[in-house]
Every structure is written in structure tokens, then in C-alpha cells.
């Protein structure tokens, strides 16, 4: 029997949701019949709107999909303006104020506290400059990710940006692929650094050479969610750039027709890959979904990959100043946990115009890159006061931090994430010394097993949990070690479970010190972890209270907003009307 959600999707889904959305927005929040809310909120996701968690009814998270993270000249200003005007809620965040943008791990943008009534205006503003929210959430082609410096990078062999743009244009709003069993995540990269993160996507195109021609090898079935992380598997297919869209269309049609529509937990293609294996996947694709002979895989470049490998040389992220192939420079700025205040966004938009081409790009590490800066502008640009907070040369602990949305807005969360990770990073910067040869050290915090912060591919993986301290429930984290990408990607080993959140910085400090004591000369953290068993590693973690203070130990999910002065669920002003005034419920 198809799931409830499938039933709703059969009634209305895809592009047609928009006219309903606009009508509800016109008439206001209360015009959505109570007994249809669940169905409409499920559908609104397709247009990039995610109803916020319990206690925040009538407010939405809005996701803007920017393929490959490319924000063209003129767009960042509009994003900042929209955030400033519409993304403020009834309470402020103590670290970030109100009105901010989140740069996400899939090179998208998230705004919070969006009101239904404002959506038509917001869509107008975004669409006027070529931005949009279509398919940013929901069961369809999601934002396409890739090497954030595609088309600019010296390490590039195939320019993947036109291919990404073509995929985006072909599959956004395309009714044939609008209703898939579940989300469909695609990565494409043409560089030899491996920064597309293809291994954790449903469909990955990776640079490869065949018969002297450059194109892509295809991998299928990666993903991190639940406790079922998978690396994408080699399909043994090579495509030239001009056929990438045909293979991508074929694969997503295969998923559309063969994915599990009865059980959403089993729907992602990684589970179909478990069931079928790559040989059957390939033969079904060949026989039913493409009308040309597929080539076997070409020679890939995986042995050169350096991105997120923990190798401590090469290109572990995109922070810093790097020369482009046209002689200009790109300047990768660190945005701690990916969150940037709207005023800062507006200022950065001006700086990008002044010193570069006006284009910026988002990375899969929640950072932002200003591209096309001529050499003579570098000094002046990097001395701008804004770059003190968004540094091209930050501490490894600031640079390596990623955090998901967590209990601030997310229904599935177990713990507070972004503000906590900000405090962790600051404390670690002041109190922990990495070995001198370690410039990269990635700590990813996810509020639950959905793994939006991609914890399994970090040096230190943190995942939301609970435990008891003196009998009282407190927020806690599972600690995993040694994950990363590269030629030989590896998911973290979960070594120490349910560590009270206030003991995690102490645990990381002890771990780093134990690593420094026990490592061989030149041994990287990732190799060190790989060479040791879980027990030995667990002993090195040693959770401990320190002078780090955690204001979020209580059950932040039971509040209506974790940082509100009166955070009691009963004190929530939500739902509110278009003017933000509380609506009294009649039941």
C-alpha cells in the first residue's frame, strides 16, 4: 500500500503546488483548513518551504537552491535584502541576532521564520534575479552540488559548471521527474581534488578519461542518513559531458519507477542499490532508460583527490587565497557553522562587487568564496574589517566546524547545534593546540542521525543524543573519529557514546593531546585513527568537564525557541498572522 505521503502527492504535487501556495499566501495562514495542513506542508517542501518545528507553527524555513553554489553577480544583494526584510522571527538568537542566512552543506541557502503571507513578494524578488526555491526540498531533484570553483580552478580537467547548469535547467520543474519516491541528490565535479563529494550523493559524476576524451564516471547510491551511511558505488559507466543529462535523466527515471513508494524509510536509491547491486542497476539503466550503448568506466583521478582527506597537504577545503586559471584569485572565507547575519551578507555583496566580479560561491563546508579578485585588489580586500569575522586564514577549529540546524528549528533534532558548535570552536581555539603540521581538523555536529552536517566524514563526528547527569536528562553527543573522503573514503568509527555536551570540548582536548603523545612522526590524525581499534581510541577520548560552559544542557527541544527569555512551550506566540501577531486557537 502506498504511504500516506504518496497519496497526497497523487492528488497535487510538483509545479501545480505553486498556485495553491500563492492562494493560501494571499488569504493568510488561517485559510489552510486545519485538516489539510499536514498534506499541504508536505507538498510545500517541493517549493522549498519546510514548516518549522513544534512551537513555531505558521513559520517556515525557506531553502533557495543555488546549483553548484554559484551566486551570480547581483544575486547576493537580493539574498541579503530578503533575509533582512523577511527572515526575522519573534525572538533573537544570542549569537547571530535576527535575520541571517545559513549556507548549507549542499551549497544552498536557508532562511528561517518566513511567513506564508510574505512568500509571493519573496518569490518575486528572488525570481527577478534568477534565484528560486523550486525543488529545494521534497521528493525530487535537489540542488545540484559540485566543486565550488568549477570553471575557475587550476586543478580542473573538465569544466563541470556548464554541465551542472544544464542538469539544473533540464530537471528543475520537469514534470517527468517532479514526483520521485524520495529526494534525489546529484553531485558533479571536473577537478582532480574530489570536492564534489560525489561519494555521499545518490548520483555522482566524477572526472574520468576514456579513449583520450575527458568526461565522467558514474557512481550511484551514496548518502549518510539514519544509521545507514553508504558510499556511492561504481556503476562502471563513463559519459562524455554532452550525454551527462541523458544518463542523469535515465537514472532518475529508474529511481522514479523502481524506488520504494510504500516505505519512505526504504525509499532512497541507496537501498535499491543494496538490493540490486551495481550490475543489475547498470543493466536496467541500459535496457530500459537510455537509448545508446553505455561506455564502461574510464580512468578516474581518485588517487589525486585531496579534498577532506586529512592528508594535511593539498586542498582540504576552499578557505584561503588561491589563484584561478585566468590569473585572478578566489578568496575562500570561513563562515563559522555557515551562518551569516543579513547586514554582513549585504556588506559582502558590496565587497564582492568592488574587489571581484560580484560573483560568490557556496561550498559544501558551509563557507563562502569571493571569486575573480585581481591580484592587485587582494591586499585591500583582505584588510576589510568584515574579514576579521569571516577570515581567509582562520584557526583550524573555526575552519573545520560544521553544524546542522538542530533544535533551533528542526523537528527531527535531539540537541542544540549551531550555537553550541560556535562555543566549542571558540573554546578549542583558545585551549587546544593541534600538532604544527595539522592545519585541517574537521569537527561536524549533527543534531540527529539524519546527518545533515555530514558527521560521518569528519575527523571528529558529533551526533545528538541524551544522557543523564546526576539523574537529570541532559543533552549529549556520540563521538566518532577518523571519517573523511578521498580515494579511500571512510566513515567515522563511533567510539564514545552519550558524552554530556559540556564534557565534549574536554574530550576533544584530551584526544588531541593523546594523539600528539602517541603519534609517529608525521602521522596524520586520520591515519592514526585508522591504525587503532575502537577500544584504544575510546580510551584516548576521556570526556571531562572544563571551564567550557554550555548553556544548552537542558532539553532545548521542549522549548518553543531555545534562546527565548521565556522559552516555555506554552509561551510560544505561534501561530501568528501575517503581521506576526499571535492567533488564539479555538480548540
Amino acid at each position: 500500500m502506498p504511504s500516506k505521503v504518496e497519496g497526497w502527492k497523487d492528488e497535487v504535487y510538483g509545479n501545480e503546488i505553486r498556485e495553491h501556495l500563492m492562494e493560501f499566501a494571499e488569504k493568510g495562514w488561517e485559510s489552510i483548513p486545519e485538516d489539510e495542513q499536514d498534506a499541504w506542508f508536505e507538498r510545500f517542501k517541493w517549493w522549498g518551504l519546510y514548516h518549522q518545528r513544534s512551537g513555531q507553527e505558521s513559520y517556515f524555513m525557506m531553502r533557495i537552491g543555488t546549483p553548484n553554489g554559484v551566486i551570480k553577480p547581483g544575486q547576493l544583494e537580493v539574498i541579503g535584502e530578503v533575509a533582512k526584510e523577511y527572515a526575522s522571527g519573534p525572538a533573537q538568537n544570542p549569537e547571530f541576532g535576527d535575520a541571517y542566512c545559513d549556507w548549507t552543506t549542499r551549497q544552498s541557502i536557508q532562511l528561517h521564520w518566513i511567513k506564508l503571507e510574505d512568500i509571493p513578494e519573496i518569490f518575486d524578488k528572488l525570481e527577478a534575479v534568477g534565484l528560486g526555491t523550486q525543488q529545494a526540498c521534497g521528493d525530487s531533484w535537489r540542488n545540484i552540488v559540485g566543486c565550488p570553483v568549477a570553471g575557475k580552478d587550476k586543478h580542473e580537467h573538465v569544466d563541470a559548471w556548464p554541465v551542472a547548469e544544464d542538469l539544473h535547467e533540464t530537471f528543475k520543474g520537469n514534470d517527468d521527474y517532479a514526483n520521485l519516491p524520495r529526494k534525489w541528490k546529484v553531485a558533479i565535479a571536473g577537478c582532480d581534488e574530489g570536492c564534489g563529494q560525489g561519494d555521499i550523493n545518490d548520483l555522482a559524476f566524477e572526472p574520468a578519461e576514456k579513449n583520450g576524451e575527458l568526461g565522467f564516471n558514474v557512481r550511484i547510491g551514496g548518502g549518510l542518513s539514519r544509521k545507514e551511511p553508504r558510499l556511492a558505488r561504481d556503476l562502471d559507466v563513463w559519459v562524455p559531458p554532452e550525454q551527462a543529462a541523458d544518463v542523469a535523466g535515465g537514472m532518475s527515471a529508474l529511481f522514479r519507477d523502481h524506488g520504494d513508494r510504500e516505505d519512505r524509510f526504504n525509499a532512497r536509491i541507496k537501498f535499491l542499490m543494496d538490493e540490486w547491486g551495481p550490475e543489475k542497476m547498470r543493466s536496467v539503466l541500459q535496457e530500459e532508460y537510455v537509448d545508446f550503448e553505455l561506455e564502461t568506466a574510464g580512468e578516474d583521478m581518485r588517487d589525486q583527490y585531496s579534498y577532506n582527506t586529512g592528508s594535511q597537504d593539498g586542498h582540504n577545503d576552499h578557505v584561503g587565497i588561491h589563484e584561478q586559471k585566468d590569473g585572478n584569485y578566489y578568496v575562500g572565507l570561513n563562515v563559522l557553522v555557515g551562518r551569516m547575519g543579513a547586514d554582513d551578507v549585504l556588506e559582502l555583496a558590496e565587497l564582492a562587487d568592488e574587489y571581484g566580479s560580484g560573483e560568490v560561491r557556496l561550498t559544501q563546508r558551509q563557507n563562502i568564496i569571493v571569486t575573480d579578485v585581481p591580484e592587485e585588489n587582494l591586499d585591500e580586500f583582505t584588510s576589510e574589517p568584515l574579514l576579521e569575522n569571516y577570515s581567509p586564514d582562520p584557526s583550524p577549529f573555526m575552519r573545520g566546524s560544521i553544524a546542522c540546524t538542530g533544535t533551533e528549528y528542526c523537528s527531527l533534532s535531539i540537541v542544540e547545534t549551531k550555537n553550541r558548535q560556535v562555543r566549542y570552536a571558540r573554546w578549542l581555539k583558545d585551549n587546544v593546540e593541534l600538532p604544527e603540521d595539522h592545519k585541517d581538523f574537521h569537527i561536524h555536529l549533527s543534531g540527529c542521525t539524519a546527518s545533515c552536517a555530514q558527521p560521518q566524514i569528519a575527523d571528529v563526528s558529533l551526533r545528538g543524543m541524551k544522557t543523564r547527569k546526576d539523574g537529570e536528562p541532559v543533552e549529549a553527543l556520540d563521538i566518532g573519529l577518523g571519517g573523511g573522503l578521498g580515494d579511500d573514503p571512510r566513515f567515522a568509527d563511533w567510539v564514545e557514546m552519550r558524552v554530556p555536551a559540556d564534557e565534549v570540548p574536554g574530550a576533544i582536548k584530551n584526544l588531541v593531546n593523546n594523539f600528539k603523545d602517541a603519534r609517529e612522526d608525521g602521522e596524520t590524525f586520520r591515519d592514526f585513527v585508522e591504525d587503532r581499534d575502537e577500544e584504544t581510541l575510546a580510551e584516548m577520548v576521556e570526556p571531562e568537564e572544563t571551564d567550557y560552559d554550555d548553556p544548552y544542557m537542558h532539553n532545548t527541544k521542549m522549548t518553543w525557541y531555545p534562546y527565548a527569555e521565556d522559552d516555555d512551550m506554552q509561551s510560544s506566540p505561534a501561530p501568528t498572522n501575517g503581521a506576526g501577531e499571535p492567533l488564539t486557537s479555538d480548540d
Partner: protein
Amino acid sequence: MTTDVHQLDDGAWISVNDSREVNVSDLWLLARSDFCGCETTDFLAEGFVKVGVDYPDIQARIAGQCISCGESGVTDWLTVGRVVDPDSGEFHGVVHESVHFPEKRTRLASPEE
């Protein structure tokens, strides 16, 4: 009215008659359960896997973990609340901090979302 129950957002919460009623991230004390070796399982709810109605009880099987011993898995059917007024569909959640007794089987549970 008939009672309409489903889990949404990947099992993040249970909707009862189109109202968000039971959420993940709470701790439930489970007695006499086979979930783990602990006398009382100190269970962290991480996701609602199945929901059903054994009128007037609303029941669920929940994915999660015992935070005392670390055992993880899916519970047997647990009563998470009841519909107190069949006309309005008004729902009262159980007090999850008190002790609960999971059941092997439930009569009218619909296995679907």
C-alpha cells in the same frame, strides 16, 4: 469522526487528526520490555516508525536507544496517548516520563504511516 494518525517528516512527529502531537527527542521509561537488559529502559525516542490506533489509544513503534546501556532498535507497540473526545478528536498525550509497558501486539494497528 474517524481518528486519523500518521508519522511525518521522516518519523519526527505523530499527527493525530492533523495536529502535531507527539515528538521525537523525549525520554520514555519502559518497564518489562525486551528492548534491552535494563530493568527499566531509559528510552530516547529518535523516530516514529509505525503508528496505529487501538481506539481510543494511539500507539506507536519507536526507533531509539536506551541511554543507560546503549542498546538501540525499535520498540514494541507503545501507547503514546488517547483520543479523549471522539467528536472533536481531542487528544491527550501520556506523560512520557512515567513508566510504560510496551505490548507485543495491538489489535487495530495499521502498519502504514
